[in-house]
């Protein structure tokens, strides 16, 4: 059963400096469900960080209320809020001396007494968090000696050990390699489903988000937050609203953002997969289209075009370029 973990009603958010009030978001409504991985997408500067700060209670809304587990977030004490809500931020400052297990144990700070001594339960939670993020084998490694991807998993484990019902991650996959990005997003989805947590991820990785998120929140300047099943948003074309201007669009067939191209279909015959990649290379590099057929032969790979034979795609592209000039 799904439950509402965080909700915002009629929010007006912004910053106040002296007497000057700058409103960034207005009329904002949202509902974050537990057991769901929600991805927040939107261009830079649209107010994603402002929204997160408001949920964390760092800024007070000008209007409207944010509730966490049904209770208004300003009514929580600092420690109470920390028990409900954990974050993974973009700040990379970390003491290299600390081991992974020690880092994860920091997540237990809201639960421990004033000395910060870990109880039996705290230790159990730390191990569970290490286990859920699959980094138990790293527990005694120092933070200065592990990779960026492993460190990010450790940060997620720390947030998990904090044992709140809600986790908010700000671009957890930024500057990670492709495999790590997939791994981390799938990991988050797993955590979400297995532990009944509500996870909100701010990300710019549309393709990976499409594959892993239960729900999308789209934010765009001047329009209210659009929430929905990712696939619904694809079908209804709402994803295109993320993309300003007419130059790019969301390609339904390929599931990614592409440059709009008219009449770029080449006449290619032969192996289908090879044809796909050749088409891709051609539309990326050559601005005009030729009528003549391109024939592909496999083993050895050869391209037959206007009675010339090319052993590599690069040679073919060079030829076409010289031809267009």
């Amino acid at each position, binding site marked *: 059963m799904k439950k509402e973990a965080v909700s915002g009603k009629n929010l007006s958010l912004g910053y106040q400096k002296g007497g000057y009030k700058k409103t960034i978001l207005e009329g904002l409504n949202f509902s974050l469900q537990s057991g769901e991985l929600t991805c927040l997408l939107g261009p830079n500067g649209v107010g994603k960080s402002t929204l997160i700060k408001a949920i*964390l209670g*760092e800024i007070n809304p000008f209007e409207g209320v944010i509730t966490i587990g049904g209770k208004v977030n300003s009514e929580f*004490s*600092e*420690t*109470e*809020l*920390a*028990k409900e*809500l*954990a*974050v993974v*931020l973009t*700040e990379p*400052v*970390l*003491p*290299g*001396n*600390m081991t992974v297990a*020690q880092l994860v144990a*920091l*997540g237990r*700070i*809201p639960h*421990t007494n*004033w*000395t*910060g*001594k870990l109880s039996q339960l705290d230790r159990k939670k730390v191990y569970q968090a290490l286990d859920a993020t699959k980094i138990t084998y790293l527990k005694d490694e120092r933070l*200065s000696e592990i990779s960026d991807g492993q460190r990010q998993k450790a940060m997620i484990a720390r947030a998990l050990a*904090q044992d709140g019902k809600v986790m908010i991650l700000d671009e957890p996959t930024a500057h990670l390699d492709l495999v790590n990005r997939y791994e981390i997003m799938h990991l988050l989805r797993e955590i979400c489903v297995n532990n009944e947590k509500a996870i909100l991820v701010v990300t710019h990785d549309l393709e990976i988000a499409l594959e892993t998120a239960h729900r999308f929140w789209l934010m765009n300047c001047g329009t209210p937050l659009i929430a929905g099943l990712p696939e619904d948003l694809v079908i209804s074309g709402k994803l295109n609203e993320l993309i300003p201007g007419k130059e790019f669009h969301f390609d339904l067939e390929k599931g990614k953002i592409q440059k709009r191209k008219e009449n770029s279909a080449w006449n290619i015959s032969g192996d289908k997969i090879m044809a796909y990649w050749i088409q891709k290379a051609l539309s990326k590099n050559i601005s005009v289209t030729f009528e003549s057929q391109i024939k592909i032969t496999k083993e050895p790979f050869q391209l037959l075009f206007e009675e010339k034979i090319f052993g590599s795609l690069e040679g073919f592209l060079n030829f076409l370029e010289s031809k267009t000039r």
Partner: protein
Amino acid sequence: MKNKRSIFFLSVGLILLIGSFLLNISLGSVTISPIEIVKGIFTDNWVKGSSKQIILNYRLPKALVAILAGFGLSLSGLQMQTFFRNPLAGPFVLGISSGAGLGVAILMLAGTIFGFSSSSDFNTWAIAFSGTIGASLVLVLVSLVAWRVKDSMTLLIVGLMFGSAVSAIISVLSYYSNAESLKLFTVWSMGSLGGLGWSQVWVLLLIMLVGFLPIIASIKSYNAMLLGESYAKSMGINPSKLRWLMILSTGLLAGSITAFCGPIAFLGIAVPHLSRMIWKTSDHRILFPVSAIIGGILLLLCDSISQLPGYAQTLPINAVTSLVGAPIVISLVLKKNFSKEF
């Protein structure tokens, strides 16, 4: 397992501390053997009456002051480094030592310029009092700023600026003062652990004990601060509360030490790094006691060196801490990857 190791190493540290303490009080212009001292203190059975005088009235208070100052400066430095997440922060980044310096400069330099004090007025209490006033003044100013700004980096810069401004005032005072009082002020600014009587030692001890309380109350918060202010907040720690506790604690510790002993350089910045390197941890439950012990040992050893065993002369402690400490730290920093471990 880990706890046993910690207890073992802490005991070794304590033994070393006691060892350096005994070494410190046995060395000097007259060498008195540690056994004789222990026997003398516990049974009041001294070999020579003069030894009793030297030990009880001179060396014992000095060694105690060395331990207290070592504790206080290291603990202040560690708090500053963690709070500001800056490896170069030390106990004096908020301008506390410059403030104490200003107080003393006003007594010694301005006093003789404007004629409200003469060189004969400079007893320990007067110096400590004016140092305390100066340090508190700067501390109040910094607190006013801290109250207004939310950003800890701004506080750090403001503290440094206060320090520079105050040093500039001291320079102006030095420029106009006469040679005799300038020499006295220069000697004060080189630091000295000696010259304090028992009554001053008790006062210092009392202030230090009060200064330790905020640390005990915020050990967990310092651990959370390792991940930066935003993470600390997300874990239920209130950084502004911690900032006040830190200002209070470092003000009491570093302020009183500077007021009584003059500025003692290097120790507060270096000892926390040494502790991190030796212990390989960033857990403040361990770092605080370890830093205190290492600080105490180092200052005792530096003071023993400054005695120039066998001579009646002593070197200024401020120069010795830097001369002895700097090479040690440089070698450690070069050997281990220190910035990675911070």
